[in-house]
């Protein structure tokens, strides 16, 4: 698809303000080589990006990172997003949130806060983030509620906490969350490095989903429970970012514009920088955003598949990580020639050798040691 007339606006601008983060989560989706991309856009650059993306039609703006609270101009950016008419979302660990800042964010017009927890207990939460943050997160949750914000509590679910899913839901109820997003780990970046440690079995997943459904029925409209199923236990892939270059526009801390937050790993694709190209040209005309847009580029068996409009061949990053070919059919699909790789991963999850490789925690020193960008 090369004709800009057929391309709709992005709905979502994900502003990754910084890769700086006080946490060291073993499943972080930031690139494993993030320490090589330490340069950050200035306040002025971000303000221009907000204006250009809004003019193009973006309506949702997510401020994320790293930890976006590490930027001391966050309130300035939120105020501009509010002025422009975005619905603004702060995606945070809660570390750095205090009474003064939450009031300032409220005054600036921030619409909503998503707060991450790693587990329902202090011990596991603090182990998984390799920091002592559980009590701080509870305080952040209380601050969010005190300002009458709708609160989305997010917890990444994996082998090391999936058996605690009931207690995680109970914690969300106790904290009076409006939404609980149980996001089963997707294997990119740091999570891919730790896949042997993090991938649950199919039985664990089914049990967790059943428990979640019981709680849905019990809670009714009091809290919305979202259970995001991991790709590896599906027979069809998900539509990459709801369609590559269709919904999401991610801008990384150094200004690289991406159709998905992990796409920087893909070789041979030129992703433009917002310092050098305006957002409209990036979205409509850049090679990076057009390469996998629509279905015209699809290989076989996808090209002839009656389901191609549903999944667009699946995730490009997953295809690349598993097959070293970003244009291949996502191996999650059972029609893929590489589906065996997924079956092997499922089998390994039933017989994990958890002691052979320790968890690799996200951190600058570890990031500088890593050669491959995934």
């Amino acid at each position: 698809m090369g004709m800009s007339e057929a391309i709709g606006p992005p709905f979502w601008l994900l502003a990754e303000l910084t890769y700086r983060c006080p946490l060291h989560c073993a499943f972080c989706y930031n690139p494993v080589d993030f320490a090589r991309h330490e340069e950050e856009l200035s306040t002025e650059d971000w303000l221009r990006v907000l204006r250009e993306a809004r003019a193009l039609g973006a309506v949702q703006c997510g401020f994320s990172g790293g930890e976006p609270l590490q930027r001391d101009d966050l309130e300035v950016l939120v105020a501009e997003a509010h002025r422009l008419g975005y619905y603004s979302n702060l995606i945070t660990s809660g570390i750095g949130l205090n009474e003064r800042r939450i009031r300032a964010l409220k005054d600036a017009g921030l619409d909503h806060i998503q707060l991450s927890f790693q587990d329902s207990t202090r011990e596991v939460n603090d182990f998984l983030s390799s920091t002592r943050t559980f009590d701080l997160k509870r305080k952040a949750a209380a601050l969010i509620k005190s300002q009458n914000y709708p609160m989305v509590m997010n917890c990444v679910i994996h082998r090391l906490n999936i058996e605690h899913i009931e207690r995680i839901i109970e914690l969300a109820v106790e904290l009076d969350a409006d939404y609980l997003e149980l996001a089963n780990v997707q294997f990119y970046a740091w999570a891919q490095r730790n896949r042997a440690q993090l991938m649950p079995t199919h039985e664990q997943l089914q049990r967790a989903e059943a428990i979640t459904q019981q709680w849905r029925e019990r809670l009714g409209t009091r809290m919305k429970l979202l259970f995001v199923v991991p790709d590896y236990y599906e027979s069809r892939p998900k539509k990459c970012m709801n369609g590559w270059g269709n919904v999401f526009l991610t801008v990384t801390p150094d200004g690289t514009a991406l159709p998905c937050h992990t796409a920087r790993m893909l070789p041979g694709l030129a992703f433009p920088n917002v310092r050098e190209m305006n957002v409209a040209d990036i979205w409509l005309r850049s090679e990076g955003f057009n390469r996998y847009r629509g279905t015209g580029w699809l290989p076989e068996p996808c090209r002839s598949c009656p389901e191609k409009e549903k999944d667009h061949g699946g995730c490009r990053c997953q295809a690349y990580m598993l097959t070293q070919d970003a244009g291949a059919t996502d191996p999650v699909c059972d029609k893929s020639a590489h589906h065996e790789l997924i079956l092997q991963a499922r089998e390994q999850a039933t017989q994990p050798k958890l002691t052979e490789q320790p968890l690799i925690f996200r951190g600058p020193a570890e990031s500088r040691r890593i050669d491959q960008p995934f």
Partner: protein
Amino acid sequence: MDSGHPCIRRGFRLQWEEAQQAHVLLYPEGMVKLNASAGAILSRCDGARSVPEIIAELEQQYACTGLEPEVRAFLNLATEQRWLQWA
């Protein structure tokens, strides 16, 4: 439902989007693009108007009668979807 006054739920926002030529309902990490009739109904859910008042206004604006079943069905759906709260 007759005695209640529907309004957009806390954390949700209804706005007209020029780029899409439609009302959109925005909420935490999501959005719904509304068709014209859904936009017309929700834009009147301000916590001040009652359901009969909303119906009367719509029938006047569109110069027709008999909209009540459609409006009530949509308000039920919007309540189930947690888009509305009732004052």
